[in-house]
């Protein structure tokens, strides 16, 4: 088996605030193979966005820094890469799209020029070539009448069209990896489905690898090959999508799945996980999910569970469920 395109090992990120150091992300590991779509799932504040900003080396250097681990991308460790090296990777080899395309596009520059900017910068195209390529890219992401729309400003696009333009922008230089940070959260459901279909299509056509950050397990079920679930700065479970969604091991994953609304469910209040996700300044001891976990035992309070492999590629960090499943498998 060849090495994965992206391999993150024990990545830790610290925040500096008033002389205090807070561990925002702790020893996160995951990998993405060529052509794989990985869903990175978790509540707001669980560290999924920070992790992806770190792998682009776009953390605000005043407040956040990588404190350990490595990010191996196509055989290169991005943690130690120079800023000049990173500039040739950002946009050219790793593309990124964002939750709110309206604010992530420059409001005073024409869409076509924003896309052309990357082409001229990374591929040394002439302005004329860039213009032609821009129109082709807009066509590929399904923007009707791209010739004319390339001269529009972002505010003249609808929400879905803006996200398509953002995707065209991120894919302009044919990167190998696309980081999609909640790309459909700000869109309505029909448009959401179209955008997700477009992402899967691009993967199929170009062999693109995608990290899809989301808090929506429905999105994961539709699009991803594998899932990593983050809670309070740590990965608590990861594995192939089918295994994780069908047989979740970590109680947090189980609760997340239980919280998904389904069309067939009887009317009534949606189930929710009691309590609030903790903040980095007050991480709970031991397993960080224990205050909200109904299966917590004494051990959960005092020691943090390690990730245990229960089946091929399916790992979970839980003192209760993981050993039980291991025992089942053995029997």
């Amino acid at each position, binding site marked *: 088996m060849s090495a994965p395109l992206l391999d993150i090992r024990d990545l830790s990120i610290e925040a500096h605030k008033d002389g205090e150091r807070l561990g925002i992300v702790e020893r996160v590991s995951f990998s993405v193979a060529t052509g794989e779509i990985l869903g990175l799932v978790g509540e707001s504040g669980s560290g999924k966005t920070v992790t992806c900003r770190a792998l*682009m080396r*776009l953390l*605000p250097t005043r407040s956040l820094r990588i404190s350990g681990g490595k990010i191996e991308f196509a055989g290169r460790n991005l943690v130690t890469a120079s800023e000049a090296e*990173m*500039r*040739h*990777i*950002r*946009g*050219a080899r790793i*593309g*990124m799209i*964002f939750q*709110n395309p309206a*604010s*992530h*596009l*420059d*409001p*005073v*520059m024409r869409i076509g020029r924003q896309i052309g*900017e*990357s082409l001229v*910068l*990374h591929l040394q195209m002439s302005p004329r070539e860039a213009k032609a390529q821009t129109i082709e890219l807009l066509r590929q992401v399904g923007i009707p009448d791209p010739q004319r729309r390339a001269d529009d*400003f972002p*505010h003249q696009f609808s929400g879905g069209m803006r996200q398509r333009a*953002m995707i065209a*922008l*991120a894919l*302009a230089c044919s990167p190998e990896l696309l980081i999609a940070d909640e790309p459909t959260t700000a869109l309505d459901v029909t448009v959401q489905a179209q955008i997700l279909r477009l992402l899967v299509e691009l993967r199929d056509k170009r062999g693109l690898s995608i990290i899809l950050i989301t808090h929506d397990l429905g999105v994961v079920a539709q699009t991803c090959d594998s899932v990593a679930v983050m809670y309070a700065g740590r990965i608590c479970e990861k594995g192939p999508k089918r295994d994780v969604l069908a047989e979740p091991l970590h109680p947090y994953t189980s609760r997340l799945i239980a919280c998904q609304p389904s069309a067939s469910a009887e009317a009534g209040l949606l189930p929710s996980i009691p309590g609030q996700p903790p903040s980095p300044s007050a991480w709970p001891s031991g397993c960080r999910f224990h205050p909200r976990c109904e299966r917590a035992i004494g051990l959960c309070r005092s020691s943090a569970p390690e990730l245990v492999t229960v089946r091929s590629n399916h790992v979970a960090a839980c003192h209760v469920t993981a050993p039980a499943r291991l025992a089942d498998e053995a029997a």
Partner: protein
Amino acid sequence: MDRFRFVLYRPLQLLPVLLGISIITFVLIRSIPGDPARLLLGTKSTPEAIARIRAQFGLDEPLWVQYLYFLKNLFNGEMGTSILYRIDVVRLIGERIGPTLSLVLGSVILAIAIAVPLATAAARNRGSLIDHTIRIISTAGLGFPAFWLGIMLIILFSVKFDMFPVSGYGDGFADRLHHMVLPCLTVALALSAVLTRNLRASMIAELSSDHATAARARGLPEGMVFWRHVLPNSLVPTINLLAVNIGWLIGGTVVVETVFSLPGMGQLLVRGIFTRDYMVVQGVAMAFACAAVLINFLADILTAAADPRVKI
């Protein structure tokens, strides 16, 4: 289509503004004690001479009749005859508009030329020694009154180093440019202080904006992110600030023209007030009002050109 309509109709807004200004200046200048005829004749005044001058300029009519005459003249593009200079006020303004126009224009250009690099340096090195130094300088710039600053500049650059003339307007383009440097600098220093602070703040906001992050995520070097995305976006609020400050700027020219003995409209206005030259004061005030409205109109067009989201 909308833009054409705006350009056509917006100047019509001038009319009510000018009407208001005409009433205010008309009443204000006449409520200052003192009789222009008496001031003009000085010690040689006899009751007959005063009456003759008053009749000549229509000052013996009731106030409302005088105002209606003034309005009627305005519609014909006339503003009466100066009591002091005995020439047409429109012609008088035409002769004095040059120094004032070059002072305002020169100050704005100079202020922008000072503010953009300073704000850039401060915003891109936020919290550093450079940033603090620039903040202290611009705060100080706000605090210095123009008459004092003007005199200090004269002492330094004209008296001590003999680089620029002390006062006057000069002859010929190059000489005039030479004469305008210090007056423009006087106004520009204060104006650039306001602009620098404003521009720095909007640059800092734009530097951490989502679209700047997205541009960095596309691999753009920091310099490109700044010049192509941050700067154009942060200029929009500054254009409006400049337009708002234009009234203050015009007021400032009055002081600066006096300090540097520039034969401009500000000086004309001041002398007009002292000699109760009603027609001149009214005329200059109307011209200033027109200028303020037109500049705001221009700023709206500029804002719309800089930000495609703005609907005018």
